[in-house]
């Protein structure tokens, strides 16, 4: 099945915020979760993911901090803020509306 990369790219921020709604996490794990949830069909390139992180951080929707792994490499964890939660809810509502409209417009089911 082919997917519309452009369509998904327009929702990068919402996808990342949705992941962080489940709890703080670090970059590689966030992307891995996305791939798992899409059964390996979709995942972000690292550059795309981190550009989005930086954008969300600048807008105040997420914050980051260095984790304390004890051993191994230190990881930077990302955490959603209150503003981020509000933004995610707005974006999600917009998407619900858009999806309903698209369903109505594209679907050819008998009325």
């Amino acid at each position, binding site marked *: 099945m082919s997917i519309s990369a452009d369509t998904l790219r327009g929702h990068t921020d919402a996808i990342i915020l949705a992941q962080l709604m489940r709890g703080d996490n670090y*970059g*590689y794990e966030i*992307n*891995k979760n996305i791939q798992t949830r899409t059964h390996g069909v979709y*995942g*972000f*390139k*690292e*550059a*795309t993911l*981190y*550009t989005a992180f*930086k*954008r969300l951080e600048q807008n105040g929707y997420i914050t980051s901090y260095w984790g304390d792994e004890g051993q191994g*490499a230190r*990881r*930077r964890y990302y955490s959603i803020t209150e503003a981020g939660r509000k933004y995610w809810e707005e974006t999600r509502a917009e998407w619900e509306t858009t999806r309903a409209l698209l369903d109505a417009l594209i679907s050819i089911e008998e009325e």
Partner: protein
Amino acid sequence: MIMFEMREVFRNIITKRLADAPVGPAKGELIEELTDNLLCRYNDLVAAGVDPGEAETQALDALGDTNELVEYLKSLEPDEPLPEPDSDWDELMKNMSEIARSAMNQARNALKAAKEQLSENGSFHWKSEDGTVEIQVGNRDEWTAELEEKMSGLEERMSETEDEISELEDKISDIEAELDYLQDELSDLQDSLEGSDARVSAVEKRIASKQRRIAAKQAELDALNEELEQLREEYGNLECEYDELREELDRQEDEDESVSIEATAERVSRHTEKAMNTAKEHIDAAVEKINAVAKKLEQAFKDKPFTVGVDVDDSGCSIGVNPHRKSEKDVIYGVGYDKEKGGFFAQWGEYKGGYSCPVEEGPVCSEALKGIDVHVNGDVTFRMTEHPEDDVIIDGDVDDLDVRRSDDGVLTIAPGKTASSSFFFGRGLSSTNVTLSLPRRAWEFLRVSTVSGDISIEGNHEVSLVAVKTTSGDLEGSLPRCGELRFKSVSGDLDWRGNVAQVTAVTTSGDLAVAGNLGEVRMSSISGDLRLDGAVTALDSGSTSGDLWVRSYVQPERLNVVSRAGDADIRLPADSAFTLRFHTAGGKLRTDFFDGPTEGREIILSNNGGAAPAYELNTTGGDVRIQKL
């Protein structure tokens, strides 16, 4: 490939992709995060049974287009406020130079006047040692000569007096003899008074005459005796004066030549004291002028990216100007008195490499040391000690070395400053071997220049820059990580192992060999062979007759090979995708990457539809072989 090396491969590639972004902590952290992510992805793929080569390719493919990240990093505010760009920087520098130059001229004139003032009033001697200044004003020789001349005059006068006395004494003696004779004659005349009246009368007349002559002579004798007495008294006075001068001269000769200002002031005449004070005033005025310049500079360049420092001591005054710009060098302005500078000086020049002071014998405390500079003719060996806090130990021909530590953390080791060592070092005749033990920690740089000595660097140090320059000496080294490796030699060989972000190696006839995870590599030689083994991110190589051999486990982002007669043998990962442009006059191309024809002077082949990267291979007669690993 072990994990450590894989991390380096990813880090090198990410660093390269983000090369256009400004350097700063944000960039450094991002590189580390992305490196970790690619390494995690690689490990997961390998654990899932994917071939390591394929896993590496897939991990790198997941990096994506980094241009947006570069733009993001560019958009960040600098972590520390950087100097504002000055559109009128050149004008400012010009103004600063003019102000300083004007002050220097004034100071120079003041010092010249001081010197002339002193010269007019006799010679002077000024020495500055151990922080004290001693001045001896007045002409010691002149002073002594004056005494001696005076004594000589006295001696002459005494001699003349002695002659006069002697002459008088002779004269007195003659008169006394004449008186005796006259007395005898008078006595004879008185004896002959008997006889005729006429004869008696005549004799009496002669007696009276004789008596007058005797009286006259007696008077003359009395006067001469009086004069003699006076001369003798005068002679006695001269003798006393002479003895006093002699005593003073003897005292003068016994005194120490070095005398303090106070002692001199007591002894010198009033006009030399005045001259000395005038000289001091001139020196103070010169120092004041320099201080005024410092203030002017500070005011003129307030909030501008450089600072001004003033250092005044007993021997003079100097101003240091630090422009805080890499392209501009520090400048030092100074006036004062320094025997090594030939007396009074007023000068300015570039500040070279920081102030430094000699290091006492024994271990050197490594705290705050950031780099080592070694300039010797013998072998140089760097070793590593276990603990980061260890001292730096210098072994070898240490007696022949001048070891200095600058206030900005640079340890410099150079031949001693004796005339003979400088002479021989300048001609490459003197050989001094050095072994340095460095504590195990990160070093900013290790820089070595030598003529024929070999250099060996080994250990677990992390060094940002290794720079070696030799005429015929070899460099052999192994470090786990090196930011930049620079090697320049006429006939010396390079043999280096380890991960290096940037390699620049130039030789005429020496062979160059580097193995490890390598970022940007630039190598050139006339007849020496070039050899690279490991992971090469980018290569620019040039040779006349030397051969090139490359084996890279990662596909280079850039390959640019120029050779006249030398052959090139390049091995790359089997899945490498690139466009090859081969230009030659008589060389041959052999490759198993492409199916197309490999004959001709200009061959373009591609297995990725003509996309980047495009490898450029140019030879005159050299053959090129580019094969799959």
